[in-house]
């Protein structure tokens, strides 16, 4: 990641935040708008970050993965379904059911990517086709099971969706408590601290996504595993000649990638809202890929790019709050579908490469033949 890319990302985020602050300041103090935007940005960037990390692991090892979308969707469904089964059928407490739900989501992601690995590494199927198969399979499988299990005559849950065990709790960082004595009697000080506190109060998957970004970066660039992973993605034959098992390394990394996608799926149905609907991932898996490319196949770069998309989504959400105070000259911003286009337009701009070319791993998408 070069400075040009990072400054472009910073610029876009500042512009998106700036628009909301300019419009919303008649209702709310700017600091509060910025911190609430920031909190939303981090939260909604979570599945994109995890999806991008999924892509980074797969593609660094030389396997193109456009099936992230499908892996997320399947994991979202089975994670949610697992939670319901644990809660209603096996009678676990809500907390345990939720935790097991996350486990099932990660497992599902891993299994879906195992399918991708078998197709693309063992059978050397065109990896774009393999990924497309995963995406189509995910839509069909989750749609079908959703209908069969919950709706219509003779369905397992008798025609209605039972209440899910709930969502993961927010982890409170006690900044406000810490600063209470420092602020003393100043109400303004306390208000500001409270506003800033909101940025840090995130849910477990959002927090782990950020930790995983830095962990992934460390693993890829500073460990034996990372060196070998990148070697099989750049020049598998060279890796083979020094005794590295190319097939094993690729399998392992694709499965790790799938587990990241699975955790991203859990975000939708276990962390964000406790329900599932068909097609709920809505292209986030593909935007993750854009983030991965814009981040030049590096975890930190991909995260920064994911934050841009997160910010554009946060803008969309906030525009609805400030809808009634949008000045007439900017009335087009009242149309949520126009604002909603921002992430997709950004994706296109980013992928044109006007911010500079990115370089994929040299053997990305190329099956290894001895």
């Amino acid at each position: 990641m070069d400075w040009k890319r990072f400054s472009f990302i910073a610029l876009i985020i500042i512009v998106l935040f700036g628009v909301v602050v300019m419009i919303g300041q008649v209702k709310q103090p700017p600091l509060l708008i910025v911190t609430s935007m920031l909190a939303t940005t981090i939260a909604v960037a979570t599945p994109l970050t995890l999806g991008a990390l999924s892509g980074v692991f797969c593609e660094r090892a030389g396997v193109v993965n456009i099936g992230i979308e499908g892996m997320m969707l399947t994991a979202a469904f089975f994670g949610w379904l697992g939670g319901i089964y644990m809660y209603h059928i096996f009678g676990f407490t809500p907390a345990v059911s939720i935790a097991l739900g996350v486990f099932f989501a990660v497992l599902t992601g891993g299994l879906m990517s195992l399918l991708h690995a078998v197709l693309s590494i063992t059978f050397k199927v065109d990896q774009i086709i393999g990924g497309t198969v995963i995406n189509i399979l995910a839509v069909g499988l989750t749609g079908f099971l959703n209908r069969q299990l919950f709706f219509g005559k003779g369905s397992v849950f008798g025609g209605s969706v039972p209440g899910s065990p709930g969502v993961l709790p927010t982890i409170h960082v006690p900044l406000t408590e810490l600063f209470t004595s420092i602020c003393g009697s100043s109400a303004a000080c306390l208000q500001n601290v409270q506003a800033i506190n909101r940025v840090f109060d995130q849910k477990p998957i959002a927090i782990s996504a950020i930790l995983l970004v830095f962990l992934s970066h460390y693993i890829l660039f500073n460990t034996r595993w990372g060196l070998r992973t990148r070697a099989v993605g750049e020049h598998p034959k060279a890796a083979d000649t020094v005794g590295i098992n190319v097939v094993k390394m690729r399998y392992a990394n694709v499965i790790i990638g799938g587990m990241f996608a699975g955790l991203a799926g859990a975000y939708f149905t276990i962390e964000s809202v406790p329900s599932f609907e068909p097609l709920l991932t809505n292209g986030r898996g593909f935007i993750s890929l854009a983030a991965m490319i814009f981040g030049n196949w590096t975890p930190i770069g991909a995260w920064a790019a994911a934050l841009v998309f997160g910010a554009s989504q946060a803008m969309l959400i906030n525009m609805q709050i400030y809808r009634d105070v949008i000045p007439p000259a900017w009335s087009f911003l009242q149309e949520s579908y126009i604002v909603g286009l921002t992430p997709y337009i950004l994706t296109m701009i980013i992928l044109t490469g006007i911010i500079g070319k990115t370089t994929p791993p040299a053997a990305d998408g190329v099956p290894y033949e001895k």
Partner: protein
Amino acid sequence: MSESKIVLEAKGITKQFPGVLANDNVNFDLRKGEIHALLGENGAGKSTLMNLLYGLHNPDKGEISVGGKTATILSPKDSIALGIGMVHQHFMLIPVFTVAENVMLGDETVKNGSLDRATVAARITEISKQYGLDVDPNALVGPLPVGIQQRVEIVKTLYRNAEIVILDEPTAVLTPQEADDLFRIMRDLTARGVSIIFITHKLKEVLAIADRITVMRAGRVINTVIPSETDSAQLANMMVGRQVILTVDKKDHEAEEEILKVEGISVRDQRDLETVHNVSFTVRGGEVLGIAGVQGNGQTELSEALTGLRSPTTGKVTIDGKDLTGKSPRIITEAGLGHIPEDRQRHGLVLSYSVADNMALCDYYHAPFSSRGVIQPKALDENSRRLISAFDVRTPSPFVNAGKLSGGNQQKVIVARELSRNVKLVIANQPTRGLDVGSIEYIHGEIIKMRGRGVAVLLISAELDEIMALSDRIAVMYRGQIVAIVDAKKTTREQLGLWMAGAQVQAA
């Protein structure tokens, strides 16, 4: 030397690939501290034997013993453990990794879970000093010159404590200076007890450096000889299986009128750096002008500018009186150019097209190959059959993909296409790079035939022997400029070498 003990022995090795018996009951041994050259044409089975020793393939029959003990080598891991290291013809280096990362890959030093780059770098520096292999452990491999990359490969084997080093065609990609440097390194290595298997098809090299020479042909070992008891002619004979004419026989004749005239051209490369500065020369009909020079002194850009692949920034190029500066390759081709490009796989052929299609690439749009915009398969077929027999292309059929042919036959396809047309000028850039003796002999013969027919030939080559054998006049290129143009008969190898290294030209 002959008294030293045998460190590696292969007995009765047989390996069958679909359709080819690559190794047929091969016996080979290597003594401690010797350089044992394995000589043979492309496809003779040298690389197969080495891949078996290194564990990239497994033999169908036969036995390998290392240090007197029978060894089972199923993968490179096994051979590395036995102290065998291999430097492949196409380097096994990762361009985006540093030297240290490349060297440690597969045998990493780790401290607290992190790669210990500092320790590895120190170890590399130590090896560098010990064997005179100067490399910077922290440099990125991609931008390094080929000669240095090769050193990195050798360091890689020594880092793994290799006592047997296999060098597969190590000089194919090197300039003469780099090759000399490699020979010095090889001597240093053997002096320290390392044994080397040196695979090559270059006769001069084996005579200069090998302690013993084993010649292979068509999967079999023909003989093992000692350099002092043999000569080039005998070796070539063993390699090819018939008498080979190693010297080019060309008749003296008067050159005709000027065909190619280059006036003060300058060319920029893709990084927008000027790599050819104000170059002027002429080539006359029936004359071969050789351009000598160490690779990377602007030869590539010069030939691209002359053939229309790149526009010169200044200057003028005329062929047979017609100004063709900066014109498209098609216009220049139609004006009478035959071009044998430097990289035959990238610029000379469409590898996924058949031999027949490749042979019509220059004029497929003319009659008889096209009629009203439709390709005539019959004409393509007839043309290719005629050329295949006329130019002795060894191919199972005209419909085989060009990518499936050996390097020598690929080059013959290009030569057939370019020289069979009615050309006035031939630009041949590294026409025999990487080819075996038989193919080189053939292509040299064709070039001399063109000269005899009154065609102007511009020969660009990094092989000084080739330049000296074929040229009537020799131009030396150094840092983008022609530093000297001399009569080939009135110069020496040494003098040309000095100019190539940048020595000033004495005023004549």
